[in-house]
């Protein structure tokens, strides 16, 4: 078991956003392993596949074809096997109502997608560092909520 590397999964249908994300995360100081899926159906298939290990942290786009991020969030939070998965909503919207609704439905983090590379890098750094502390410092995950919008 690798204690140092954080396993990250990004669910996003936009090619550019995925590339942008991959480059930014490569510069974060915590060691990470990054996997990607293109939509909600692919995401749920992967998470429900017992042969693939569950990631530590999921970045979830709300606006995806076939199955929306909101539907995925609901499915994940009603599945006991996925209770330890930290969910970061990764969205272009920053409406207060959307944000609060995702938190109520069990999201831990809400990130409004930034357009600036440096900003994305800083946000990812902050999110990953904090999540890493939740792994190692015994903080209560059930009340882990972070809003970066």
């Amino acid at each position, binding site marked *: *078991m690798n204690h140092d590397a954080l396993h990250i999964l990004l669910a996003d249908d936009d090619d550019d956003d995925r590339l942008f994300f991959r480059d930014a995360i490569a510069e974060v*100081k*915590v060691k990470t392993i990054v996997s990607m899926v293109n939509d909600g159906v692919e995401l749920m298939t992967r998470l429900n596949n017992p042969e693939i290990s569950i990631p530590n942290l999921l970045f979830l786009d709300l606006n995806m074809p076939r199955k929306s991020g909101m539907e995925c969030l609901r499915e994940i939070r*009603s599945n006991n096997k996925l209770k330890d998965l930290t969910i970061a909503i990764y969205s272009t919207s920053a409406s207060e109502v959307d944000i*609060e609704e995702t*938190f*109520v*439905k*069990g999201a831990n983090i*809400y990130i409004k997608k930034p357009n600036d590379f440096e900003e994305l890098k800083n946000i990812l750094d902050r999110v990953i*560092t*904090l999540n*890493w*502390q939740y792994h190692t*410092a*015994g*903080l*209560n995950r059930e*009340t882990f*909520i*972070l*809003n*970066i*919008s």
Partner: protein
Amino acid sequence: MDAARLSKKIYLMLRINFLVLATMKLHIKYDFNICCKVVLQEQLDKLELPYTITGLGEVELKGTVSTQKYNELESALRKYGIEIIDNPKNVFTQKVKDVIIEMIYLEEALPTLTISAHLAERLNKSYGYIATTFSEVTYTSIQNFITLHKIERAKQEINAGKETLTEIAWKLNFSSVAHLSREFKKLTGLTPTAFQRIIKKRKEVELSEAKIGKH
């Protein structure tokens, strides 16, 4: 209760709430020192290793231990969230964390002495040394770690709903509610009031889903 969840660090959640039945909630409080000690004893006994538990987080093994047994012990303990620390700087950092956590969670209210002075006194090292070593080992500064845990305790208190924000701020040594709210917002992106509302709504959703599940 699931034994695998009795991890070393779980004592931070002084009150855990979990749903047994849709209508019944048990509030549990336990002594993490006893939990860990029992787990340790059981695992060491199982591997037939002669030992003495010399203190909080310290075990002395008598005689030499084969690599195979060491590895077996390591993986047996990992299941409970207990980790063997073998690098001196990690050991020291763990002690620093223990002292901070003890101060923040186990006292009714935080001591008025500054945390840095308290740490230096308890660990018998200069604060400069403590802070530098801490940053080398963790990915964060000691000050961030302290704030993180103070806000974590504030979350617990808000969640419990027994005290006002003014009382919580005073207990945790914030100079005012505004100061607590500022630190809270800086760390979580939410005001304590918004946090409170979200937690309350989550509980309502859980409750209604549990009811649906029952029908």
